[in-house]
């Protein structure tokens, strides 16, 4: 569904080095790596926000619908949640059920700034779902949420992924546990300029345990 080819990217200093990626339907990828290694930059390239300084860039199906959950909610602060959802193409009748799916039933007429961080992020997730994405991009979806809210968002996501098995997902995260729970493939980005050090598929439960161990070791090493 999507291919990305980068020779290098970033000026004046190259942030990303040689990269060649391929994402197919149904893949749930967790992208890990130390802070500042270029994870968000890579995600933006995949989303089609900008082209690499050198390389073929992103090639994707013309009809590919992308939902992108940014680190900040990036809802329009001057529009209610209902208006925000309708602006990306949600039908008026679907708004309430979309909000319901992220546990925000009855909040359609709230402005984004009236919500807490966790609620606003869920509202932004509802907007991602409103476009019925083939590819869902998540940039640190659990960052700066307390354990309970992070857990409820994680459950919410797991349920959504189960509902749409064909949807591909790329999730940037720090946490090896997230990878173990959500992913069936793991990327590890590191170095300067950054390259993919690791591209593993997680097929079985023992794979997962091993991956979590390795990732935790990597995380501690930094």
């Amino acid at each position, binding site marked *: 569904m999507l291919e990305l080819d980068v020779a290098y990217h970033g000026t004046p200093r190259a942030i990303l080095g040689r990269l060649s990626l391929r994402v197919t339907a149904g893949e749930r990828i967790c992208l890990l790596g130390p802070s500042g290694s270029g994870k968000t930059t890579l995600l933006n390239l995949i989303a089609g926000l900008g082209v690499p300084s050198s390389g073929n860039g992103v090639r994707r199906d013309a009809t590919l619908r*992308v939902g992108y959950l940014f680190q900040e909610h*990036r809802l329009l602060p001057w529009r209610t949640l209902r208006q925000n959802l309708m*602006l*990306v193409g949600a039908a008026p009748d679907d708004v309430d059920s979309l909000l319901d799916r992220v546990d925000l039933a009855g909040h359609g007429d709230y402005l984004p700034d009236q919500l807490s961080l966790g609620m606003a992020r869920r509202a932004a997730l509802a907007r991602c779902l409103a476009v019925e994405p083939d590819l869902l991009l998540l940039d640190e979806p659990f960052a700066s949420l307390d354990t309970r809210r992070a857990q409820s968002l994680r459950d919410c996501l797991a349920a959504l992924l189960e509902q749409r098995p064909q949807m591909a997902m790329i999730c940037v995260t720090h946490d090896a546990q997230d990878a173990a729970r959500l992913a069936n493939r793991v990327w590890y980005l590191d170095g300067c300029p950054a390259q993919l050090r690791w591209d593993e598929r997680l097929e079985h439960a023992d794979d997962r345990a091993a991956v979590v161990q390795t990732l935790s070791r990597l995380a501690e090493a930094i």
Partner: protein
Amino acid sequence: MSVRALAGWVGLPTLLLAWWLVAGLLDSALLPTPGAVFDTLWQAQRTGELWHHLGVTLRRVVISFFLAMALGTLLGVWMGRSRLADDLLDPLLVALLNLPALVTIILLYVWFGLIEAAAVLAVVINKVPNVAVMVREGARSLDVRLEQMADIYRFGRGRRLVHVWLPQLAPYLMAAARSGLALVWKIVLVVELLGRSDGVGFQLHMAFQVFDVATILAYSLAFIAVVQLVEQVVLRPLERRSSRWRRVGEPHHA
């Protein structure tokens, strides 16, 4: 009433009192008392002359104000978003900003004759650069993160303009409208004085010929009152509406 609420009512009455005292002491036709000015105003109102000239001037103000805002906004957004357009037009803009209003007016009257179109065009040319400069500042500071969001969700031009750009440009447009209204009506009076045969500016001109200070003050005060009314009835409520979302800041939920 609090001290602050009272403070607003000190300046103007004091001025009125001082005027009344000085005029009474001088007892000269060159500085009529507030009462005499009000009489003149009342006379002009009764004959309908005041309304006719106020109406004509107001029409010119409204037409040139909207033309200038529309053109200035287009120009400002274009220059704010496109580096090339900015490089291309910036020197022109600086030149226009520094062109005296009087020069534009005289040149247009000389070239096109003493006609209505020349009068309005002169006002518009004087105002457009101010609007463009202010709106350009706004267009330059549009939030990149919301732009990316609009790219991802494939917002078309119209949708982007109305829902992403306009709310961000609103404070700049309000500032431009405020200063615009004040500037436009002053220039309209000059335009009328130099080349039209109706309007407040024309009446001021006639009164000046015979040193009729009461009429000059009467017409000036009447038009200032009209502009104040526009500010209170149109601009303030518009501003409150466009910035309503800012006041919800405090989260309702923990």
